[in-house]
């Protein structure tokens, strides 16, 4: 283990073993992140208030989902506003398999992940030549097509009435009587995806993602296959998102297309990652930890007085943060640390 300050040194960031840094840096696990994640675990163990635990479950689940989104959006540069489709595919697949065929969701989630991966791969292949806003809009359109299809394919999805999972506790069916197992599951989901994200950042594959994101022609010129890189990144991201979908279904026990496969949800994944810090492992975690509880809080405080006011504030915050802190919370932390650690003439760093 080597300890790094925020300022880059000479080779300790790239190498074997775990490297530790103080502030968030790509490819390293930072002390800040460890503290934050530890706090999550502690909070999970300590807090008993039902409502609070419910918020924690949503927060951790959304943290994991944002991490999943980030693999495609932040690392590979494939900004998708249709990820709710993968979320929905995961949720519906495991639920349909459970309700119709008695398949335990533990297995169903694999099926959902596989299906979503195929969908993601298909989408990216079909949109292979599109860049920038055209790609984004295509993902949006694909998400909407999925939603409408789910809404109308009543025989499969129950249409707008949705699907309901009977609240009969059974560990095999991933239905639990108390909140704790759910909390453990989603916390595990988020932690696992965090570790996976860091592993990707440090791996050859991760570097390929960054290369294709930053300059596709440059990446091709050094032998990276851009199409494969993009397609695989989206497929991986989709699969991981689908798993989150299954967890969601098992906790809330009710699905319907309008709420599950909505652009709002897609935007949330993207927004949480962006506000927390795109392209870093800690970013989506920070984003979720701040945004989910905050919006719950605002909604609780303000919806009595004026419905929608909390969202006005939320929207304004989004505008301000994205314009003035484009690297999100992670980036702000990293900058703050480098200013503290090197007061005079801090060198310009790569994000």
């Amino acid at each position, binding site marked *: 283990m080597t300890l790094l300050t925020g300022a880059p040194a000479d080779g300790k960031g790239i190498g074997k073993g775990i490297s530790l840094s103080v502030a968030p840096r790509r490819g390293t696990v930072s002390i800040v992140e460890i503290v934050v994640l530890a706090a999550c675990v502690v909070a999970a163990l300590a807090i008993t208030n039902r409502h609070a635990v419910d918020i924690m479950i949503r927060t951790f689940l959304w943290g994991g989902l944002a991490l999943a989104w980030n693999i495609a959006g932040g690392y590979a540069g494939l*900004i998708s506003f249709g990820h709710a489709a993968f979320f929905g595919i995961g949720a519906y697949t495991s639920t349909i398999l459970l309700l119709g065929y008695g398949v335990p969701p533990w297995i169903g989630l694999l099926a959902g992940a596989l299906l979503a991966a195929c969908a993601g791969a298909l989408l990216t292949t*079909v*949109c292979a*030549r*599109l*860049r*920038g*806003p*055209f*790609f*984004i*809009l*295509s993902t*949006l*359109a*694909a998400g*909407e*097509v999925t939603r*409408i*299809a789910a*809404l*109308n394919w009543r025989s499969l999805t129950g249409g707008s009435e949705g699907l309901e999972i009977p609240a009969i506790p059974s560990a095999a069916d991933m239905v639990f009587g108390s909140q704790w197992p759910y909390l453990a599951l989603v916390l595990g989901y988020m932690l696992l995806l965090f570790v996976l994200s860091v592993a990707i950042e440090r791996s050859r594959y991760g570097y390929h993602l960054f290369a294709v994101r930053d300059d596709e022609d440059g990446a091709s010129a050094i032998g990276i296959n851009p199409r494969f890189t993009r397609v695989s990144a989206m497929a991986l991201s989709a699969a991981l998102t689908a798993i989150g979908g299954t967890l969601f279904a098992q906790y809330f026990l009710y699905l319907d297309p309008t709420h599950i496969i909505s*652009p709002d949800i897609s*935007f949330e994944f*993207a*927004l949480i990652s*962006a506000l927390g810090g*795109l392209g870093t492992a800690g970013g989506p975690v920070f984003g979720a930890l701040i945004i989910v509880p905050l919006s719950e809080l605002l909604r609780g405080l303000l919806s009595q007085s*004026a*419905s*929608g*006011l909390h*969202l*006005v504030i*939320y*929207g*304004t*915050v*989004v*505008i301000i943060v*994205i*314009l*003035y802190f*484009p690297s999100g919370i992670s980036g702000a932390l990293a900058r703050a640390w480098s200013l503290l650690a090197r007061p005079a003439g801090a060198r310009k760093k790569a994000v």
Partner: protein
Amino acid sequence: MDAVLQLLVSGVMLGGIYALMSIGLTLIFGVLKIVNFAHGEFLMLAMYAACAIVSLVGGNAYIAALGVMPLLFAFGVVAYLVTVRPAIDKPHLIVVFATMGLSIVMQNLALVLMSADLRDVPPLVGGTPLQIGPLYLRLELVLGFLISIAVTLALMVFLKRSYLGKAIRATVQDRDAAMLMGINVPRLFLLTFAGGSALVGLAGCIMLPLYSTFPTVGLNFVLIAYVVVVLGGMGSMEGAFLGGICIGLVQSLSSYYVAPAYGQMFYFLVFLLVMIFRPDGLFGQRGAAMVGINE
């Protein structure tokens, strides 16, 4: 046979209205090369403004355009300066999120201030459809269509003949070259954004007689607008018009022959098909979609 004719004609007219809604967007998209996620909310604002003017001052939504267009122009200036300009040379993601934030703010401000109730204006001739031969068409639909044609033609002339129009076309094709030719591109961005917003203002006025307004009305239309823009090609007036007509037809026919619910899905499928086979649209520049954003 009459049914088909009715569908076709009303589809075309509806398409004209979609076109007007999209014309501002295609200019903005073409010149600034950004996705404005709040476009639907600008439309919503226009519709509410028209509503307010009609109820305060009287008259109809069409006359209200005289007030709504300047209002939207001014709003466009402000929105541009606050949410778009700071993000212009940064990764396009930032503009996307900033306009998304703007969209959330606008939707919810409308909710807070105006409540979720539907609002509309009284119809022009007591609501009875006109009868033109075997067809029954609402007057507002026909008027909207005619205005849309007129505006499209006027804009086409403007783009071809005036200096500003040529400057816009140049910037759509190559921003850097335009700058080198002495075009004040930053000012052009501002004017185009505000001008496009004013056009949305007009669209809102002609749509209000046909649709009620409510805080999230923009969501219904923004995606249609983007489909039209993409189909027609970024920056092309004739493309936006023809794209609008296509989408109007698709919607009209699919709602009748398939199912109304699926109607929405159809234009998304059209969008995806266009993206796959001809991402530059009917009249767009070749290769525009593949370059995406100026790097």
